[in-house]
């Protein structure tokens, strides 16, 4: 699947998007975040805020317990500040 990062999550990860395949057993947004944190210090730094990081699955807001099976695109970003 494609992973996208926005705002300071993007800056900390050091890239705007990448392809990734999560291993078996990683089945929710929260589990995907835990797996990403183990990939290196830049991911650890980006996701250290834990539940403050928001996610979207295929361009729709998704909660931490949302299943990721079948997702084509998962985005991570800080709380929104538009308007």
């Amino acid at each position, binding site marked *: 699947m494609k992973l*996208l990062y*926005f705002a300071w999550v993007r800056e900390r990860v050091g890239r705007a998007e990448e392809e990734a395949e999560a291993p078996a057993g990683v089945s929710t947004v929260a589990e995907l975040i835990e797996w990403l944190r183990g990939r290196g210090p830049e991911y650890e730094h980006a996701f250290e805020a834990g539940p403050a990081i928001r996610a*979207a699955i295929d361009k*729709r807001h998704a909660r931490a317990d949302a299943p990721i099976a079948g997702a084509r695109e998962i985005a991570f*970003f*800080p*709380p929104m*500040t*538009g*308007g």
Partner: protein
Amino acid sequence: MTVRLQTEPFDLGAEVARLTDGRSDVGAVVTFMGVCRDRTDSGAELVALTLEHYPGMVEDELSRIEAEARARWSLADALVIHRHGRILAGEPIVLVVTLAPHRAAAFEAAEFLMDYLKTSAPFWKQEETADGRSWVAAKATDDAAADRWKK
């Protein structure tokens, strides 16, 4: 009913005229315009904001918010314009216009649209001051404002 994402500024008067011209079934028109202030919340002088967005999702999300407003209130028309990119102090950022037979619906729908834009549309503001750039933190008051619409 229209949602628009654009980099260029907009003209409030022209947008309202376009929505109201030739129709006389609307008793109430409410507009909200958000403008880039020349100070940060901590008081530093602000040169500009840069708005990052999630292409694709932002259009979907604006349309979802606007459809929700139409489902809740009987609106004759509605418009949402949101800019992205670099916006100088004094320039407009966002415009919401609601047209309804009576004023209560027009006011409520405009406030609802703004509360949801703030907390649900995928935009992120970066402030540019003499000290450099920094990301704006989300406000708890915006979450509280959006929560009041939950049934």
